[in-house]
């Protein structure tokens, strides 16, 4: 075994959000189940971090937890979510939490979601936001909104006067982005930003996200199930399965040399435009439902081709296998 290369630990000043020991559980008629189980993760300031996973992986729950807005019957059971200059948001009172949402961290919704009040114009809803956050110059938010609209090549004045039903899917996505950025938050969460969009709109949205991320020095979190989006946009990728992190690495490292069998299988399951067809291999089985997640052992073992007896008995922990590259698999040792 080679000795691990020395790594300078990140100083706190480089970390924007630090999640420690987070468990989010859902109360059902048959018991309490963890949608996220003992998850720890540091999100670097100024990075674009992608959370990738299938349905039921807990990635959306994680996004909601990061704004402390997990809804009933789910709740944050244990753990802390520390934002730089704010502290642990799981301990905020209702009023501070309200102010935190939108001002410090904001969410961009999917294109298919109707996230605007159907009875009010876009501009009026921006003003509502300004009022809620006690902005002294309320009109400023309209100027900011128009600026953002133009930045995203939308006709600003018409969008401000539009109702939700007058916007197309791609436009809704961008309007959702205007709302997220209007109060100049430091952290932006994008929930499946390209789902339900065509390839061309998708590449356009990705361009915009990248550009605005850089212009505004944001820390961006990307929730996605699409490895292509990860590859195009993110600096870092966290692979989730059944509420746990399977692998956490810089995007290029992960794509080039995934360590966890799940990450490998996910990448292999993408049909490609070049190369032999059989390079793409289907991933057997189906994602676990909340109630099926085993408590002991590796959660991925049922779909894993390399399963061994240790996988049933011992829960693998997330450990560093290469510089800045963590994985949770018994079979993976340091490179």
């Amino acid at each position, binding site marked *: 075994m080679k000795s691990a290369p020395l790594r300078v630990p990140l100083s706190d000043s480089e970390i924007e959000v630090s999640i420690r020991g987070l468990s989010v559980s859902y109360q059902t008629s048959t018991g309490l189940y963890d949608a996220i189980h003992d998850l720890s993760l540091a999100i670097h300031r100024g990075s674009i971090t992608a959370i990738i996973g299938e349905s039921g992986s807990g990635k959306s729950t994680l996004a909601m937890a990061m704004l402390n807005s997990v809804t009933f019957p789910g709740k944050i059971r244990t753990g802390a979510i520390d934002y730089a200059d704010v502290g642990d948001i799981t301990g905020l009172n209702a009023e501070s939490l309200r102010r935190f949402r939108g001002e410090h961290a904001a969410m961009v919704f999917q294109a298919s979601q109707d996230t605007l009040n159907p009875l009010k114009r876009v501009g009026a809803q921006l003003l509502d936001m300004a009022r809620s956050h006690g902005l002294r110059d309320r009109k400023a938010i309209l100027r900011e909104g128009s600026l953002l609209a133009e930045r995203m090549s939308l006709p600003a004045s*018409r969008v401000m006067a539009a109702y939700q039903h007058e916007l197309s899917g791609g436009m809704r996505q961008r309007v959702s982005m205007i709302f997220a950025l209007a109060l100049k938050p430091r952290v932006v969460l994008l929930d499946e930003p390209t789902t339900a969009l065509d390839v*061309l709109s998708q*590449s*356009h949205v990705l361009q915009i996200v990248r550009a605005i991320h850089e212009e505004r020095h944001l820390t961006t979190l990307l929730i996605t199930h*699409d490895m292509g989006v990860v590859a195009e946009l993110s600096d870092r990728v966290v692979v989730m399965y059944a509420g746990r992190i399977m692998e956490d690495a810089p995007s290029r490292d992960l*794509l080039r040399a995934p360590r966890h069998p799940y990450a490998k299988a996910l990448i292999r399951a*993408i049909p490609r*435009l070049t190369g032999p067809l059989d390079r793409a291999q*289907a991933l057997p089985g189906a994602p676990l439902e909340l109630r099926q997640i085993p408590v002991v052992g590796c959660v991925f073992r049922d779909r894993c081709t390399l399963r061994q007896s240790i996988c049933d008995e011992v829960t693998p922990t997330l450990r560093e296998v290469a510089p800045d590259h963590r994985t949770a698999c018994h079979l993976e040792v340091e490179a």
Partner: protein
Amino acid sequence: MIEVVDLTRTFRGAGGLFAQNDVQALRKVSLKVERGAALGLIGESGCGKTTLGRIVCGLETFDGGDVLIDNQSVKTLGDRARRKVFRKVQLIHQDPYSALNPTRDIAHALIDPLRIQARLTRRDSTWVKQRAVELLSLVGLDPQETLYKFPHQLSGGQRQRVVIARALTVEPEALIADEAVSMIDVSLRLGVLHLLATLRRELNLAIVLITHDVAAARYVAHDGELAVIYKGEIVEKGKTDSIISAPVHPYTQALLSAVPVLRGLEVDGPDRYIPEPEVQVQGAEPAGCLFSTRCVFADDHCRGHHPDLSRWGDGDRLMACFKPQERQVVAVAVDDAMEA
């Protein structure tokens, strides 16, 4: 097996802030697909590809041109005969969640159409039950596990397999898969695509894959054809691999360029260019090439004249562009990758 000739369909519509009134979903589209062959219809949403799929399944009407199934025009058929003819062409819906009746179990979903089939082919009720089991195995499901389940107890991938099994109950000659994998988990998509490719081979089915995901189309129709549709018009058509490796029409190139590059595994294609964002145009359509409003290569001639579909090269490639040029825009694989 299926042939459409100069197919035209116009929707009268109204709508949002930037909408025009009438939508020409299809403009003189001609296509043909034989049994055992595969065709990928590529385009963005709203380009008319779904309408085309629905028309050849008999679920939508058309205004002009004709649809021929097994060389028989459907225009002159009566209600009964139409129903019979269109049973040969089955649609696999985009949304496996709505494609199955939530109140009925899988056994019913298969047995109802099988009963009809049994009546038509003079087979008995044992055959019906046996066939239901066979079909579930055929699409890669465990019959014992699935037969008495309700749709909500199955995953998206499993549902889509049931939907395919149901389509097979009537022994069709063609499957039209309309974005059949876009709503299921990424990890399960390939399995369903693989199933379609297998069925095509084993049952000698014609497969039409309607999608905006070129890679998915390639997976099923790599030895078949691709047709690229823009605003209801075919702009390029030809052998799948030749279109992907050397697209001629700027729209095809734009679509292929927009496919994310898996950096780390792939590098950008040498001619890749980031397409212009869609410009919202109000009012009348351009007099010339429909794509000229977004095309980076368009000039005044393109904007003034409409290009017809014409032959390119010495193969059977067709394209509709005044400035055709082959460009290699697709990402290139870095070969050290994961097999190591």
